[in-house]
Structures are given as C-alpha cells and as structure tokens.
C-alpha cells in the first residue's frame, strides 16, 4: 500500500462526536493538521485528547463525524490509516520481558521490513540505547522506556505519528530527552500530533496548538496567534528570577545519570 498516496492535510477531523454512556466527551471536534511539523492538542485531564487519538488510530469508533488520516478514512479505510500512522500511548507500550533490541526487531518484523536487525541497531544508536539494547526493557528508567517507545513508533517511517502525553510521569531530564526526539522526528518531515496537558511542552514543541475544552476545539492557531487573543502585553519591569528548571539543572548538572549515559554513548 502506498502510504504517500494522499494529498491534502495529514489529518482532517470534522464534527467528531463520542460519548461514553451518558458522558459526552467529544461534541463536534473539527481540526486540520498540515503535513510536517508538530501539532499540539492541549487540554486538561479528561478533556478527550486520548479519545481523539484513539479514534484517529482506529482503536475506537466515533459516534458521529468523519476523520481522515493521510487521506484515509478512519472508519472505512482503517487498514490504510494503520499503514500511515504510529501510536505512542500514554503508558510506554514496550514489552518488558523482551530486551530493547528485541522490542525494536519485533515491530520491524510486524512492519515486514527487510532487515529488522539493522533497523533495530540504527534506532538504538539514534536514541542512545545501544548499551542498554540487550537488557530487558523492565530494567529501563522511565526516560529510556519512553525513548524506546518512541523509537518503536518510528520503525517503517510512518508519515504521521501520534504521541499521547509522551512526557507524563517523566522527570525533567527525561522530558527534555523526549522533546529532543520529537523535534528530530519533525525535522525529518514526519507529521506529529502531540497531546499534552503541559502548557510549556506545547509552547516549546508545537508549530500549531489547538485547545480541546468542553468537547470542542475552542482555539486553534500558532503560538503567536494564540498570544494575540489576549490584550497586548504591557511593559513592566520585573526582576528576572531563575525558574525552578534553571535551578534544577544548575544544581544537578552533568552528574545526573541520564545525561551521563547519553554522553557515554556518544
């Protein structure tokens, strides 16, 4: 199947509705994601971000509305959608009993690639997991597990990648590692749909941001456009205090495990 057949936007969602029993989670969601770049779907817990992602990745059927991914309809052309996407869910979906490398080989085999071993080794290198590659994924730290998870999502170069709250539950360093991985992904031309409840994450990563609230998209635009929704900034003189993040990295510095591991492998 030609995963690049479709022209037009990478994702087009129109009038999407979904209820769980009496709870109306999505009440008519509309948005489009252009090809390439990072689109952030922002919302509080329970806003329905995951529901949107599950519908787009053919895991859940919508009650009403249409959604197309890479030109394929999620309801009628599910196979085409699955050829085009990759999903990284909220909980790092890695096989804990297999080693990191075996996890990658498994996905490469399921994507029917020619040289699964080479694909796995390349990704281990790219995500600084070469040394840990032969260890069981159960022994990985949260950040390593996420990196492995994202690496698994890249196998077969799907044009659209869904990252559902990729940094939830991670420590600040692991978060930055994941951010770097996401940025690299987008630089390679992949369309990334990212859901997050962290405003700074959306601000840092996304080209466009949509806010899902009350079952609808209430705003959608670039960060600059979103900023214009508020009255123009007033100039105030404020003493610049270092953020807690600045302090954390200044104190922890290069002694921290994650960075050391990365540095060693380079």
């Amino acid at each position, binding site marked *: 199947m030609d995963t690049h057949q479709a022209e037009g936007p990478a994702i087009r969602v129109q009038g999407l509705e979904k209820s769980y029993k009496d709870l109306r989670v999505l009440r008519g969601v509309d948005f489009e994601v252009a090809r390439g770049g990072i689109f952030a779907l922002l919302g509080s817990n329970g806003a329905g971000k995951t529901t949107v992602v599950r519908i787009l990745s053919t*895991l859940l059927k919508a009650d009403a509305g249409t959604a197309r991914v890479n030109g394929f309809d999620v309801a009628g052309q599910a*196979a085409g959608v699955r050829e085009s996407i990759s999903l990284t869910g909220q909980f790092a979906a890695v096989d804990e*009993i297999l080693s990191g490398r075996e996890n990658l080989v498994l996905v490469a085999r399921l*994507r029917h690639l020619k040289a699964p071993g080479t694909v796995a080794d390349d990704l281990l290198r790219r995500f600084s997991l070469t040394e840990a590659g032969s260890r069981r994924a159960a022994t990985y730290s949260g950040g390593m597990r996420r990196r492995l998870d994202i690496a698994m999502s890249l196998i077969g170069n799907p044009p659209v990648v869904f990252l559902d709250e990729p940094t939830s539950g991670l420590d600040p360093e692991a978060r930055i590692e994941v951010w770097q991985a996401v940025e690299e992904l987008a630089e390679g031309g992949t369309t990334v749909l990212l859901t997050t409840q962290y405003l700074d994450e959306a601000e840092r990563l996304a080209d466009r941001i949509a806010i899902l609230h009350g079952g609808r998209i209430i705003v959608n635009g670039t960060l600059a456009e979103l900023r214009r929704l508020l009255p123009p900034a007033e100039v105030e003189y404020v003493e610049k205090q270092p953020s807690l993040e600045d302090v954390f990295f200044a104190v922890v510095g290069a002694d921290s495990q994650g960075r050391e591991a990365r540095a060693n492998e380079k």
Partner: protein
Amino acid sequence: MATHFLGDTAVLTGRTLRHVTRSLDTILTTVITPIAMMLLFVYVFGGAIDTGPVSYVNYMLPGILLITIASGISYTAFRLFADLQGGIFERFQSMPIARSGVLWAHVLTSLAANAISLVVVVGVALLMGFRSGAGVASWLAVAGILVLFTLALTWIAVIPGLTAKTMDGASAFSYPLIFLPFISSAFVPTGTMPGPVRAFADHQPATSIVNTIRDLLTERPVGSDIWTALAWCVAILVVAYVFATMAYRRRIS
C-alpha cells in the same frame, strides 16, 4: 491483510513464547499443584480408594492432566490481561498487521506452554510408577483430546483476559475449572457418590474426557465416552470462541 496473517501470527507467537521461556516459574507453578495432588492422592488417599485392577496412579493420571491444563490456561488470561494493561495490545492493534493474530499468538502459546507442563507431569507420574502399554495410535489420540481440551479452555481464558478489570479477576476464573475433575470419575469411581452428586459427575465434561483417556492408556476398548468427550470439547470450544470473539470486538471497537 490476510496474506500477513500467518507471518504476523508467527512473529507474535514467538514473542509470547519468549514470555514463557523467560519466566519458567509460570510452568513450575502450573505443574506444582497437579504434582502435589498426585502425591497426595497416590500416597495418602489412594490406598483407600478401590479402583479394581487398575493401579491408582494409572487411574488418576487423566484427571491430573486436566487439572494441569486448567491451571495452565490461567496464565494465558494473565498474559493477555498484561498486554492490555501495558498498552502493547493497543500498539499492535494500531499497526498494519493481521489484528486477530494477536489473540491467536496467545492461544498457540497456551498450547505450547500446556504441552510442556503435561510432559513434566507425565514424567513425574512415570517416576511414581505410572505405566501404560498403549500404542502410538492411542497416545496420539490422548494427545489429540488434550490439545482439543486445552484449546477449548484457552478460549474460555481469553474471555476474562479481555474483559477483567484486575489481574486477580483475570486469573480467578480458573479455580472452578481446576475443581471440576474432583466431582467426576477422575479420582473416585462415580458409583460411590450419592445420587445427585453422581448424576452431576456422570454428566459433566470431565468424566467423559477422563474415562476416554483412561481407557486409551489402559488399553481397554473405548466406549461411546470418546464421542461424548469430543462433543463436550468441541461445544465448549465453539461457545467460548464465540464469546471471546464478542469480547474482542467490544475491546477493539
């Protein structure tokens, strides 16, 4: 997608088989209960049970084999439930693969894991004096019935594996299955049981299956029991498969 079904199922089965070979304790806990029961029945209770000319270990082995399978399949539910919890099930479902291969991989792995457990239990029975002069054809028939029974129970196990809310819920369903052989001809001839119990024992699946396997292993002519046994296995298999497929549909829609 159909073209990938065999290949994808093979890859996924390889994955779950690794789960079995890397946690051999699951095989151990599967066989330890049947082996303990075998020791208890043969060396403690067995002397007081009259099984005619058949030695007691020969008499009760078929029932022990069913118990082995019943305790083995709870790991299938466990492994399936763990896949759902961990999110890897959803990862597979969102990939361009033959989706039902995910379930079949668990079913095939269940067959393999139970086969290993059964071989271990038969091995211990041999040490305890179990002997059979049955020929290759009879052993193949026994293996066939055990495979069919494992398949039937495995599809039952798939249902809680897909629908359970907790890990305990996913594996607790197997307890009644483990106890079913006790109210059958597996350990005591049903003739000694009081009326209603005997009526239940004579007409539940374990009795016909146990009788068939026992007849095959003790080189006696197999009566109509084999047809009853096969009918039970196929009926359970079909019903469980239908319900498991429904649970699966609900899970992926």
